[in-house]
Each structure stands twice: as C-alpha cells, then as structure tokens.
C-alpha cells in the first residue's frame, strides 16, 4: 500500500486547482466557482483528517518533494518538502475546516447577495487556502517564507476585493505594506538562518540536520556554526527576533497591528478566514513551528511574551469603545493573538497551540455570526443601529452567544480552558525564575476583564434590547448556507475545550488532557517534551507553585474567571435594558484617545508620509539630477561611441584587410615585446 502521506501535497494542491478552475472557468460554472472551492476544501479537510489519523497512529512524516537549488556545487539545498507532525496536521485540520465552512458561508454571503466578480472571489479564496495549507506543512523556513508571502498577497487581494470603492483598496494596501514591513525582517532572518546553519529545515523524522537542532548543538559546543562574530546565544536571539518581525506583522502584534482593523473592509467571510485560520494565524503558527529555536533564547521568549501581553491588553482597551461590530471583533482578534504570543513566550507551548485552536473556532464563529447579522442588517455594521435581533434570528444568536462566551473566557466554553491555561503557564514560569514574565502576565490578566466587557457589550448591543432602527425591526432573513456553518461552529466553540481539560485532569487524575499528550508525542526534536527540556535547560524556565500545584491552578483559574465575569457583569450593568445608552462620554479625554486607537495610525502615517515620503523625495531629487544625469550621460556616451565604432566599418574591403592586418600586427608586436620573442 502506498503511504497515505504521499497524498499530503494534495491538501494544498486541491484548493490550488479550485483557484485555477474558478479563475478560468468560474464564469461558466453554476455557482461561479463556489462549488469547486467547496469540493476542494472538503477534499482537503478529509485528507487533513486522514493525515491527522496517520500521525496519530505513529507515522509522523517528512519528505522532500523538489530540490530546486542543490547539487555539489552549492553548499546548501533549497527544497520544497512536507512535514507532517502533530502540530502541522492539527493546524491543517483547523485551516481546512474553517476554510471549508467559510466557502459554504460565502454561498450565502456572496452568491445570495448577488455580488459581482464571484469567480475572482472564489479563485482568490482558493489560492488563499492553498497558500496557507502549503505554509502549514512546509518543512523548511524558506518554503514557509514563500507561502507566507503568498498568504500576504492573497489577503491583499481579498481585502481589496471591492476595489471600486474607496476604503478597501487603501485598507488592502495598508495590510500589505505593514505586513511587508515585518516581512523584511523575516527575509533577513531566513537568509541569516541559511548563512548560519546552511539549512532551514524545521526537522522531523529522518531529517538529520535541522536548524533548531544545530542551534542547540552549537550552544552545547557540539557543533560549530557561523555566528558572524557574535556569541552563539546572542546571534540566535538576533536571528529569532528577525524572524519574529514577520510574525508580528502577520499576527498583528503591537506595533504592527494597525492593518488588521482596517482589513475589515474586505468581505466578512474573508475576515473570518483571515482572523481565524489563515493570515493572522500564520504568524503565531510559525513561532510554534520553530519553537525549538526560540526555546533556546530566553531574551527572544521574553520579547514574545511581553509583546503578546501588551498587545492583548492594548487591543482589548481599544475594543471597548468601538461602534461597529466587526471593529470590536478585529480588536478582539489582535488581543487574542496577543494571548497566544504570551503563551508561547511564557513557556506554554501547549497552551499557545490550544488557544490557537479554540480561537480559530470561536473567532470564525463570531465573524460568520457577524456576517449573518450584517446580511440581516443590509450591510449596516453599526451596533447602535441594531438591538433586539435575538428574536429575529435565534440560530445566529445562540451560536454567537456561544462564541462570545468562549471569547470572554466563561467556564465551560472552550475559550475559558485555553485562556486559563495560557495565563496559568505564564504565571508559574513567572513565579519560577523569570520574574519578567509576571509583568506580561499582569497585562494579560487585566485584558481578561476588558475582553469580558467588550464581548458582552457587543452581544447586548446587537441582540438584546429594543430594535434601534427600521432594518433591525425587519431584518433580512438568512438561509441554511449561513446557519449551517454557524451551527457547526457554535457547537464546536462550546465544546472544543474538551481536547485539553488540563485543570479537570489535574483534579480528577484522569488523562483527559489530550492535546497535551498529543503534542508531547511528536517526532523527536519537535515535541512538547523536548521543548520543555529546552526551556528548563537552556532558557532557564522553571515552574513554581507557591500554593501547591492544584491550588495554584485553581486560584489562577478563579482569578481569570472572576475578572472575565466582572467585565461581563459591568457590560451587562451598563448596557442592559431595552434602550441602552452610550457611556463612552464618561471616559472623558480617554475616549478620544481610545477612539483614535492611541493615535497609532497617526504616527505610522506620519512615519510613512512625513518621514519616509520626505526621504523618498530627497532621494528622488538625487536620483533625477545626479543618478539620471550619470545614466543619461553614460547612455549618450555609449551611443556616441557606438556611432564612432560603426564608422570603422567603411564598407571598403581593402580597409578591412588593412585593419585586420593592423590588428594582428598589433597583437604580434605586443606579445612579442611582452614575451621577449625579439630578445
């Protein structure tokens, strides 16, 4: 029997085929390419599940598909290959599941709404999924980078889908430029990895030389790598931080988060895909993918944790005052990815992956729910125009509520379990020998309160109270294509936590922390156990339990749950009742700051326009006057010389013979003199 893993490339190839089909034949297909996309994603989902099963039965797999630079002449190989291990197959399933549901939802959101340009939409969606899937199973950093960039390109295309309107193109441009800024660092990082280790492989079964492993050996002094004169640890930190630049751009971490709220200009299903499973997830996934490398550098980990904690808090506060439902969700995404980063930086590899998983589910749910609301509201996104939608659209409501509870982190919804574990892991490592983490932890903890608050504010304003506009009184109905994905995701958001009920496992002693054991049994060098050893041994992370293990955990859970409930309670207190009123004015000057997103956009625009544009203009002046001058001079000189040279060709054959003889004689004389023939 052929190895089932031989079909792994098809996971990415199927959506790519649907991209081609939609692009070239979409016009002629019944649903404008939607069916091709759904079929392809369904296929990918099935295959991903198969891969998950294969890996679960102990067949982690790595294979090189194509070597495009290699051989004896070059010291390194550039390859395409796939790496199927616990982490990547889990992510494959998430991505293909979300993408599948988004495709289905799009039938309701795009087709039924008679949007134009559908073949283009489905083509781009297909390419988007294909690139993300390719990114997920990439077995080396360079391949990952290439697909990473493709993901960025597709998000640019999709955000700017309605390119005839004013907002989307500029939002698309912003998303592209901001993430590109981060990717510069990533690219330098990739080159640095190659220059340092000569390979960019992540590792996996059968891979002898992977760069995290080499780095580990180098730190132990067992292998020598080119560290460009730095101490190995310093250099690895630098490289790690360079790659982190790309991560922060893609995962919208402070200060690169500004593109994400604007990206709401794209179609809502696209937002769901971007936020839940693809674009934004790509960043943190990369950190998890090369966690063995980051675990070697406590500095890099601390930076990750701090960026994550700060982003979580920072974005949550901005989400508090937003009026548009999708804006709230956007900031919640930034905030939640902050948590994931916090977890990874805080030594909670499993926690980070866990939160990535649950977040993918409930955030997709929330966006699709918001999409459903937006359909109902005839594309009005202002929550202050909504209200009372609970009665009109119960399926959406309950699904949305499920997602919101998960987002806020209320027990027993999935978000609670994962967020709790994130905070817990950070806390115990912080209490260990890394007090710095406690600061990050504090920020994360505070953000829980805000999360609870803005989540319930959103729910209350949208679904509760009396309708505040005519459209809210008589919303547009939605059909099964919308409700179906919502129902699936709503159920998942409620129960997805069961994959890793760590606190329950701790209390009862039952082994029900499945994700934990799943990730701990990855291939050698790529599993949680190894990471934990690295964290302990190299990065110096130790867990400490001041109240004993169980009690510390319960206390941590109680604190975060309490804060979430407090936030939710405050929201309920403020926005309860049939006619909620705006309370933002009470914030005074702070309101302005929050509405303006802490003036993040402003300074970045200043950076772009005030500074960069001026430098560019100066450079342009230099370019036009001096560089162009030189170039023009050179070109006219060339043409002049050419014109002189061709005049040598007089057309008279005797002259040619003479010149020929002259040339030969010159050669003979010159060499004669030089080599001493005449001596």
């Amino acid at each position, binding site marked *: 029997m052929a190895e089932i893993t031989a079909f792994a490339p098809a996971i990415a190839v199927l959506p790519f085929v649907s991209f081609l089909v939609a692009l070239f034949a979409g016009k002629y297909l019944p649903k404008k390419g939607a069916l091709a996309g759904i079929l392809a994603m369904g296929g990918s989902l099935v295959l991903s599940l198969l891969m998950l099963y294969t890996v679960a039965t102990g067949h982690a797999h790595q294979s090189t598909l194509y070597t495009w630079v290699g051989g004896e002449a070059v010291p390194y190989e550039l390859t395409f290959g796939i790496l199927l291990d616990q982490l990547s197959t889990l992510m494959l399933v998430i991505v293909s599941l979300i993408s599948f549901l988004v495709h289905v939802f799009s039938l309701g959101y795009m087709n039924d709404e008679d949007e134009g340009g559908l073949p283009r939409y489905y083509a781009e969606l297909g390419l988007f999924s294909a690139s993300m899937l390719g990114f997920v199973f990439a077995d080396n950093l360079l391949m990952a980078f290439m697909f990473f960039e493709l993901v960025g390109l597709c998000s640019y295309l999709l955000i700017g889908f309605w390119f005839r309107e004013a907002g989307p193109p500029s939002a698309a441009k912003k998303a592209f430029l901001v993430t590109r800024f981060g990717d510069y660092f990533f690219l330098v990082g990739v080159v640095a990895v190659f220059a340092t280790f000569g390979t960019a492989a992540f590792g996996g079964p059968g891979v002898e030389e992977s760069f995290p492993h080499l780095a580990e050996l180098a730190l132990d002094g067992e292998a020598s790598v080119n560290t460009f004169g730095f101490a190995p640890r310093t250099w690895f930190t630098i490289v790690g931080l360079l790659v982190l630049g790309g991560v922060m751009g893609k995962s919208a971490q402070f200060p690169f988060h500004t593109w994400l709220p604007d990206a709401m200009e794209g179609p809502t299903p696209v937002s769901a895909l971007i936020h839940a499973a693809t674009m934004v997830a790509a960043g943190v996934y990369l950190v998890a993918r090369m966690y063995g490398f980051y675990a070697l550098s406590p500095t890099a980990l601390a930076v990750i944790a701090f960026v994550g904690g700060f982003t979580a808090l920072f974005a949550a506060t901005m989400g508090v005052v937003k009026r548009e439902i999708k804006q709230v969700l956007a900031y919640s995404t930034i905030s939640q990815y902050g948590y994931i980063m916090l977890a990874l930086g805080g030594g909670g590899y499993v926690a980070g992956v866990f939160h990535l998983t649950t977040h993918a589910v409930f955030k997709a749910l929330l966006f699709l729910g918001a999409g459903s609301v937006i359909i109902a509201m005839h594309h009005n996104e202002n929550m202050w125009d909504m209200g009372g939608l609970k009665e009109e659209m119960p399926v959406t409501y309950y699904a949305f509520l499920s997602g919101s509870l998960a987002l806020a982190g209320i027990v027993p919804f999935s978000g609670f379990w994962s967020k709790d574990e994130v905070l817990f892991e950070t806390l115990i490592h912080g209490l260990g020998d890394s007090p710095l983490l406690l600061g990050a932890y504090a920020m994360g903890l505070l953000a829980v309160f805000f999360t609870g608050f803005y989540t319930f504010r959103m729910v209350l304003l949208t679904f509760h109270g009396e309708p505040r506009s005519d459209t809210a009184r008589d919303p547009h109905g939605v059909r099964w294509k919308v409700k179906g994905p919502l129902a699936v995701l709503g159920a998942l958001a409620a129960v997805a936590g069961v994959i890793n009920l760590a606190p329950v496992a701790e209390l009862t002693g039952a082994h029900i922390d499945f994700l934990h054991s799943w990730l701990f049994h990855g291939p050698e060098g790529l599993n949680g156990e190894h990471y934990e050893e690295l964290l302990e041994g190299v990065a110096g992370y130790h867990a400490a339990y001041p109240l004993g293990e169980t009690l510390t955990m319960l206390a941590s859970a109680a604190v975060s749950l309490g804060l979430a409930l407090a936030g939710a309670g405050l929201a309920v207190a403020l926005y309860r009742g049939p006619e909620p009123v705006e309370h933002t004015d009470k914030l005074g000057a702070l309101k302005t700051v929050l509405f303006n997103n802490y003036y993040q956009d402003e300074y970045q625009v200043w950076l772009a326009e005030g500074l960069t544009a001026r430098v560019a203009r100066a450079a342009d002046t230099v370019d036009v006057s001096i560089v162009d001058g030189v170039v023009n001079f050179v070109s006219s000189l*060339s043409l002049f010389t050419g014109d002189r040279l061709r005049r040598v060709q007089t057309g008279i054959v005797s002259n040619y013979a003479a010149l020929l003889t002259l040339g030969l004689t010159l050669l003979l004389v010159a060499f004669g003199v030089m*080599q001493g*023939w005449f001596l």
Partner: protein
Amino acid sequence: MITPEWAAAAPTLVLGVTALVLFAFDSIDPESSNNPVLAGIAVVGSLAAMGVSVAYLVAGVGDPAVELYGGQLVVDGMALFFQVIFTSVTALVALASYDYLEDMRHQAEYYILLLLAATGMSLMAAAGSLAVGFVALELASLPSYGLVAFLKQNRGSAEAGLKYFLIGALSSAVFAYGISLVYAVSGSLLIDAVAGSVRNAGQPGVLGVGVLMVLGGFAFKTASVPFHFWAPEAYEGAPAPISAFLSSASKAAGFALAFRVMTVAFPIEGVVGAVDWVLAVQVLAVVTMTLGNFAAATQENVKRMLAYSSVGHAGYVLIGLAALTGTGDGGLVLGAGMIHLLVYGFMNTGAFLFIALAEYWGVGRTFADYNGLARRAPLACVAMTVFMFSLAGLPVGGGFVSKYYLFAGAVNAGVWWLALVGAVNSALSLFYYSRVVKAMWIEEPAEGVDVSSYPSTLYAAVITAAVVTVVLLPALGLFSGFAFDAAAAVLF
C-alpha cells in the same frame, strides 16, 4: 565505444551523404522544380544526422573519445555536442529555406552548398589534427561564400559574398601560415603530438607567432575582433536563412575547433612562456563584445543590428577560452561556452529566420518598418520577442542560464572583470534588443505593409526555434551535464 569504429563519424557521414544524394537528384533531373523534395532531403538528412549525434551523445559514444585514422578524427563528447548544434541549425535553416527560396532558381545548389558547409562544420568539431581542421574549415567556408552571394541579382548579396570571400581568403592564408609555423616548431600536425612538443619549445617566437595566427583563423570563423569585419556585411547582405546559418552554426564551428586546438594543442601551462594566449583571448573577448554591442546599439537596420550583436555574442563565448586561467574550474567555463553556443544556435537562428519572414513579406529592414508588426503576425512576433529577450539574457529563454554560467565561470576563474564587462554589455544589449520588441508591439503600424500569406515551413522553423529556446531555460539542466563533462574531458 562503438563498433565499427568509423561509425562514430556517422553524423558527418550522414551530412556528406545527404549532400551527395542532392547532387545525384539534381543530376538526374537538373531542370526540376520539385523543390519540396530538395528541401525534404536536406531537412531529413540533417535531422537524421542530429538524431545520430544526439543518440551518440546520450549513449556516451564519445566517452572515452573514439580516435579514428590515427587520431586525425576525434569523436568525443564535445564533438558530438557541437554536431548537435550544427545539425539542428541546419535542419531549421533548410526547413525555413523552402519558403524563402520560393520561385528562385538553383535551389538544388543552395541545399547542396548548405549540406556541404554543414559537413565541414561537423568535421571541424571532430578534427584531431590541424590538417583536418584546416581542410574542414575550408570545406565549411567555401560553400558559405557561395551561399552568401546566392542572390546573384542582388547587389548587396554579391557585395557581401565578395567581402566575406576576400576576408576569408586572407584569414585562411593567415591560418595556414600559422599552422605552418606551429608545424615548424613541433614537427607534427596531430594536436596531441603538438601538445607534447610545444612544451618548452626551442623557438618561442616562431611558436608564438604561429599560435596567434592560428588564433586569427579562429577569430575569422567566429567573427571576433579583429577578423570580424566581414560579419556585419555578410550577415546583412546574405539571404536571411544563410545569415542565420553563418551566425549560429558557422560561429559554433569556429569555436568547436578553437576550443579543441587551443586547449589540447597549446595547453596554457605548457606554452605560457612562449605565448600567453589566454591573455590574448581575454583582450579579444573584451574588445569583441564591446565593439559588437556598441556598434549594434546605433544600428537602424534590424538585420545589421543582429549581425553586430552576433559579433558581441562571439565575445561572450570567448570568455569560455579567456577564463581558462588555470584557477577555478576550467570545465565549467568551457562547458558554459558550449552551452551558450547551443542556446545561441536556436535563439539567434530564430531571430534571423524571423528576419527571413519579414523579407518574405516585403517588410522593410529598419526598426521603423517593424512597427506594429505584432498586430499582423502576433505568433511570429511572440517568437521574436522570446528571441530578443533571450539574447539579451532575460530569463524567458535559455540565454539567461547560459550567460549566467559563463559569467559565473569567469568569476570562478578569477577574471571577474571579464564577467563585469560582459554584464555591462548585456545591459546595453537589452537596449537595442528591446527596440525591436517595442517597434513590434507598441508602435503604431506603418501604412502599406501587407502580411498576406503565412509561409508554413518558415513559420514552423521560427516557432520551433522559439519553443526550443524557451524549453531550454528549464531543460538546460539536462544538457549542461553533457557539456560540462565533455569540456572537462577535453581539458584533462
């Protein structure tokens, strides 16, 4: 190895026999106007020769080298590689000529001369002694003179033939004299034997003059400075398929002989005391590419522009010899030269055949006359665009890879300045190549140009050349191994 041994010379023999068959056919029916048969024989013959040489190359007949007639002929990887170039160019040219020669007289003579010249070239590639080299060179040259002057009623053609012939006669005299001097020093004409006796030869002056004069003979055949003067005129005045033939196959033949003789007979470490010919080639390479490209940049006539660019390309290929400094991988750079000639054989032949197409349509010869041609013949213009960009070294065709190999080889051998000059010239070449593309695609068409018919074989030849040029970009990896191995086998 192959039995019987003489079968190793089969590509040459097939070409020669094809020429004899054409003779026989024309003797049987001199007044015949059965041109498809003539063109057919020529195409089939050259394709058969190509098939044989490709098969030999793949089967490794030339490894180890087969020596025939006491070393007079050497069939090795390099010989077979070059024979592939000659035969494929010959096939393309013969195919295109069918339409080009429509309604002309003396077609049989045309194909006979073409096949005889191809035989000579094929022999040049396999020449194991200076005597065979000289005879083969003449066998390649003499029919070429006739072919250039084939359009007897055309002043340009006659003039081009005259100039080609006179410079050619002078060059062959120089070449013969050079050989005589080498013989004077070494007492042998077999290049292996020459190599043995030129080491620390007693008369460095005689040897040096001889080597430089022999180099001059190669410079003539490859259209390198200062023996290049015939090239712009001959290429411009000749029938366009012949220009294609001369600038691709004939040039490659010159290089085939030059590569073998210079590297085997005059190993640089043995003769450096008498004459540092690598230095001479370096000078020639720089001057040749610069002169060719600069002069091409100011041309108004497309065919003449291509002619000068052909001189420039000779300069690039000369890097293959000029970088044999002893440092770095000589096989790499020599093989790169061979690969460039292979790619050039298709892209340049294609470009000249496009000119043939334009001449067939009666389109004028200047850039301006090509304005808007893409609207009337988009397919051919796409092909021409591929040729132009590939010639300039853009990665749309194999030209990119082969140039890259050449420059990389030069850098590898420590003569980075050669690569630098080459790169600057490549940049300049993009200027004049893109003028053609701009004229065809962007400019408004001129009035009164009528593209009424689409000559099928001419089209087929152009398109085939374009397809091969493009395919060679990814597929060059397959061929480069043969070239590098063959070059290494010649060097060591």
